[in-house]
């Protein structure tokens, strides 16, 4: 019973591997029971550590790395398909938005009334989610694109429309049969790759110094016209 108060200290010492306190150590050196408890606890923790090591340090299967690499390789096309689906959806949404914008602009142009500097048009569709639209007659961004749209005090700058229109101006759009966009993209990549090679090889060659071509002066002698001998007389 007297030894019970030392039990916690003995377990702690066995768990941490630290030395016993002087008072506890003194007692243990004299008490066979506590010595036995300490030894048992030490062997217990050795057992626990051995069990943990056995469980934690298993050999990794030799083909594990290959298996994961193969799974990643399989993952890439799936991911690409996912990306292209997102891209397709995005293009579709962008096309729809563009179409709505064009239709809206056209309906405003026809249905609105002109003022000195601006055109104010009410949305023709009653109860439609589209608000009344105000069009400034400022910079011309294209044949039918509005510059500013606002409704009940809220102004939306349509910079995205401007950017889209600028992008469209820079590069022409091409009509492609659905599902063959990727083929065209690959074709363009091929062309671009060839162009890049040509540029690199041209860049590698040292450009020769440009000098004016020296042409020696040409002397033109007088033209002497000699009549051919008359062969018919023979």
């Amino acid at each position, binding site marked *: 019973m007297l030894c019970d108060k030392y039990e916690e200290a003995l*377990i702690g010492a066995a*768990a*941490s591997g630290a030395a016993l306190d002087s008072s506890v150590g003194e007692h243990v050196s004299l008490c066979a029971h506590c010595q*036995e408890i300490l030894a*048992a*606890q030490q*062997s*217990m*923790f*050795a*057992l*626990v*550590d*051995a*069990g*943990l*090591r*056995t*469980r*934690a*340090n*298993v050999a*990794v*299967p030799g083909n*594990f*790395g290959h*298996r*994961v*690499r193969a*799974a*990643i390789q399989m*993952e*890439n096309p799936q*991911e*690409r398909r996912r*990306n292209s689906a997102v891209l397709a959806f995005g*293009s579709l949404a962008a*096309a729809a938005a563009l179409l709505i914008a064009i239709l809206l602009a056209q309906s405003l142009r026809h249905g609105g009334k002109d003022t000195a500097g601006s055109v104010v048009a009410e949305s023709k569709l009653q109860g439609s989610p589209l608000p009344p639209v105000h069009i400034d007659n400022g910079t011309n961004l294209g044949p039918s694109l509005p510059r500013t749209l606002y409704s009940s005090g809220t102004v939306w700058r349509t910079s995205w429309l401007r950017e889209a229109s600028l*992008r*469209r101006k820079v*590069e*022409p*759009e*091409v*009509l*492609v*049969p*659905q599902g063959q*966009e*990727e083929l*065209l*993209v*690959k*074709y*363009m*990549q091929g062309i*671009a790759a060839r162009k890049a090679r040509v540029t690199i090889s041209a860049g590698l060659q040292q450009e020769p110094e440009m000098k004016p071509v020296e042409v020696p002066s040409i002397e033109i002698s007088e033209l002497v016209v000699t009549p051919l001998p008359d062969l018919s007389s023979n």
Partner: protein
Amino acid sequence: MQELVLIQPIRAAEEHWSREAAHAAKRRDFEERLAECGPLAYRVARGVLRNDADAEDVAQEALLRAYRRFDRLRDAQRFRGWLVRIVFRLALDRARSAKRREVRETEWAQPARRPAPATAEELAASSEFQARFDRALDELPEKLRLVLLLAAMEGHTMEEVAAILALPVGTVKSRLFAGRKKLAEKLQCYVTNTKKR
């Protein structure tokens, strides 16, 4: 009638190209990490699941998830810890679902029928002890279990475990101490057995 779509081919090609290049770079970078951290992922999964096939599946799934979200990892230094957490969580989920199906092993419940091993090492290696030990470890709180497993892996210092788990070294030490102590309490009957021997 075939539908037509409008595209800007040069821009599309450039985008496609940059995507491909990004993919290649990501894959290269990830493969380097895979070589470094793949075994760790497997061992953590194996430590929780105690089954080679399940551990392989879970580690592979965790690595794939890590690959998919690799772009979102802001600090590359934290990859190990991030991966360990993914593996551990997946392994715990798998273990829980397996537990529901599993027919309980009763081997550990009849220690008296088996011949008594002579030394602590033999005892630790015996299937009877292992089964009991596994059960005791599975019953530990998750945070203690992960620290115990990582600390028991060869080559891991306390500092490394702390870095992996993004914890202070003191917390790792206290969890390790608490975990080992709890395990020892659960396996107390073996002390009594070895003592008697």
